[in-house]
């Protein structure tokens, strides 16, 4: 990404060699970083979460191995780690320094029902969620939308356009996904930095609107 100062070794989109030879010095936070915020990028497997994160992150996306059984009520319980049958899932994340003091993290999270505990842990404290949807298989996103809505996190929906995606009228997509009238719905190309930034902006501008309306006492928060 052109605007990232230390991204000389950013891997090509789609590279899965994520944490090979990462050094601590490459990751250390800017000394002025004062507020660290996150947006959760959520969607079913294969929808393009990692591609989107890679498109905007200034560091090569990293991942942590998460143990699905560990997170339930006690997120810090390591019992699951001892259980060899524990399912693990990789959670990718990236980072963008915005201005002097603000650092935005993007966490790619599978949002299906069976990942509920993981979702709860990752979504904690997030500004909002960007729900990434594949219009060729909308039904794969129903679970995700249900979980996000239930969590109360504000979200925007971005339809990742694949080369063979059929384009549907916005009304039809809204109806299929059962979106509220004011929920932002945008198209994006997860491989394209500008397009991904626009999708994130749609969410953040929506958050600003909601905040302004809450301040004006028109909606409950």
């Amino acid at each position, binding site marked *: 990404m052109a*605007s990232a100062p230390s991204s000389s070794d950013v891997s090509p989109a789609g590279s899965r060699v994520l*944490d090979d030879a990462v050094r601590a010095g490459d990751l250390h936070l800017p000394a002025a970083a004062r507020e660290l915020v*996150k947006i959760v990028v959520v969607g079913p497997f294969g929808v393009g979460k990692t591609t989107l994160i890679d498109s905007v992150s200034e560091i090569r996306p990293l991942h942590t191995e998460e143990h699905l059984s560990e997170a339930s009520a006690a997120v810090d319980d*390591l019992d699951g780690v001892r259980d060899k049958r524990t399912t693990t899932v990789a959670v990718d994340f990236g980072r963008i320094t915005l201005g002097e003091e603000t650092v935005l993290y993007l966490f790619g999270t599978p949002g299906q029902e069976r990942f509920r505990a993981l979702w709860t842990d990752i979504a904690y404290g997030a500004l909002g969620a960007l729900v990434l949807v594949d219009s060729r298989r909308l039904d794969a996103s129903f679970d995700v939308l249900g979980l996000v809505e239930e969590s109360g996190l504000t979200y925007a929906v971005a339809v990742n356009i694949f080369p063979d995606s059929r384009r549907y009228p916005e009304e039809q997509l809204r109806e299929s996904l059962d979106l509220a009238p004011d929920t932002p719905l945008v198209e994006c190309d997860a491989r394209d930095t500008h397009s991904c930034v626009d999708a994130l902006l749609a969410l953040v501008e929506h958050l600003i609107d909601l905040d302004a309306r809450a301040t004006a006492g028109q909606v409950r928060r």
Partner: protein
Amino acid sequence: MRGHRAGRPLVPAYLSTEGVARPSRNSLERLSVLTSTAGPDPGELPPAQHALRGALEGGSLTVVEAAALLRLPVSAVRVLSAALIDQGLVTARPPVPSAGQPDHDLLKRVADGLRALKL
């Protein structure tokens, strides 16, 4: 825990914490910022704690970044960080200063920062 290459982590998660399953404090989030205090390691620091403190040499990392770097689960890094904090070898601060300014200003900084990426 140096020179991470692709493949299995050098220290299995359950050994990294020496069998401790829960952190001694519960305030660590994924984005809590870990910073090493000055001074050398005390003699007998367990290897994984030593590795974590080493990763913080010269700069701060979030919990989740330390986990990715050391190839340990976030839960293990929470345990290790808490142990180091208890010994005064590492400090942690929350992701956003708790003296919270209004949300509005923060959101606006994020929006402005994102717009600047497109220039």
